[in-house]
């Protein structure tokens, strides 16, 4: 006993160091720390309100780009609307969704954002009180942005598409082949699309959209366009460089997507997995 006390007294600095370093690293390596330690991210009230105040001031300087973006989006939506109201083009399948619609969109403002880290996050000025929850997708007027990974009462933290752990099932709009979108950490303008088989025809300029396999985003939301498609001969897959349509440097307003049928879908899938494991 005496020996232990003597040891600590002699090496208290090293012991202190090990304790603090261990604490720090436990934060780093804790899986999904957002679930447990919601305080330590930019959704907490200190960092959140700090970013919000700063954004309230600086957002005035981006009003013009913001307006242009919204006007372009309005034009696109008007065109889509015209297409849908044209009864000859209306889908024949009857809508069986009890909610009448599957996806609900909430507008939120980006109050903080980065593009130069290996793991980029975005902070939004909407939180639990506005119905934002973890796992919801975030899109901009021009494409996919990321996914909500943490919420406080009034703020939300979004894992940007520019994050080393981000993955999304994507497909070629033309042809419909499926692949996976990831980010390589080098350039905020480009992402990587893999697992598209070489049997598919891929040309520069082809549009990449979300597949709708996950419950985060509706099917067909634009991700980017093919910049360069290189075949990997030994693996029979393409490596496709994708130019992202979202300008991550200039994010202003975004939409948070909630899938109203998410629980139904995930429950069904979980039960099916369980039933399969039981056998």
């Amino acid at each position: 006993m005496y020996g232990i006390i003597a040891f600590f007294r002699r090496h208290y600095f090293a012991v202190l160091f090990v304790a603090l370093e261990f604490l720090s690293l436990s934060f780093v390596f804790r899986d999904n720390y957002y679930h447990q330690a919601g305080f330590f991210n930019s959704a907490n009230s200190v960092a959140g309100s700090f970013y919000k105040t700063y954004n309230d001031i600086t957002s005035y300087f981006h009003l013009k780009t913001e307006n242009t973006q919204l006007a372009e989006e309005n034009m696109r939506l008007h065109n889509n609307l015209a297409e849908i109201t044209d009864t000859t083009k209306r889908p024949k399948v009857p809508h069986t969704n009890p909610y009448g619609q599957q996806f609900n969109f909430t507008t939120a403002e980006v109050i903080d954002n980065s593009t130069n880290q290996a793991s980029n996050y975005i902070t939004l000025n909407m939180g639990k009180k506005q119905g934002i929850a973890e796992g919801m997708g975030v899109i901009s007027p021009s494409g996919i942005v990321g996914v909500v990974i943490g919420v406080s009462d009034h703020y939300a933290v979004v894992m940007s598409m520019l994050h080393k752990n981000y993955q999304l099932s994507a497909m070629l709009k033309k042809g419909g082949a499926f692949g996976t979108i990831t980010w390589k950490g080098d350039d905020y303008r480009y992402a990587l699309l893999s697992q598209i088989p070489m049997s598919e025809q891929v040309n520069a300029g082809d549009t990449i959209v979300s597949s709708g396999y996950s419950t985060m985003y509706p099917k067909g939301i634009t991700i980017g366009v093919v910049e360069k498609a290189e075949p990997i001969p030994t693996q029979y897959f393409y490596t496709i460089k994708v130019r992202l349509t979202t300008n991550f440097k200039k994010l202003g307003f975004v939409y948070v997507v909630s899938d109203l049928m998410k629980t139904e879908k995930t429950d069904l899938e979980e039960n099916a997995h369980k039933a399969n494991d039981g056998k």
Partner: protein
Amino acid sequence: MISEWGKNIARFIVFMLIQVLILKHIDLSRFINPFLYIIFLLMLPIRMDKSLFLFIAFATGLTIDMFYNTMGYNAAACVFMAYCRPRVLRFYAPKGEYDTSAKPTIQSMGLSWILSYAGTMVFLHHLVLFFLEALSFSSFFTTFAIVIVSSISTVGLIVLSQLIMQRRRT
């Protein structure tokens, strides 16, 4: 004594703001990623109690992590740097010992001392930070290049900041 504390607190606030509002958004290259905020830690008194320094470093790292959403990364890097500080100081100690009035500034210790002291400390900090971030992500050499280039940019900014602070005083 009180004014020394006041100066340190003011430095903490100013350099946190510069880090979070400006440097976080500067996107020159993936390789240039300066973390100027550690200048606050580097400029704490040479004779400060090393355990106290360790705690301050931990708290400073956590504060940055909160704004960067990098929980624990900066804290781990700062704590490691703080642990090495007594050794670094001893290694670069001038002949005899540090004067009781010695401060870790260009004015007090000279440019070459600052370059070696800040260079070593910044390198240790960036080494831990970028390798933690790069786990299972980038290659060793890319990450090492990021550490070197970012360290140089951080040290450059530290020297610049000290020169600016010094000019304001005289």
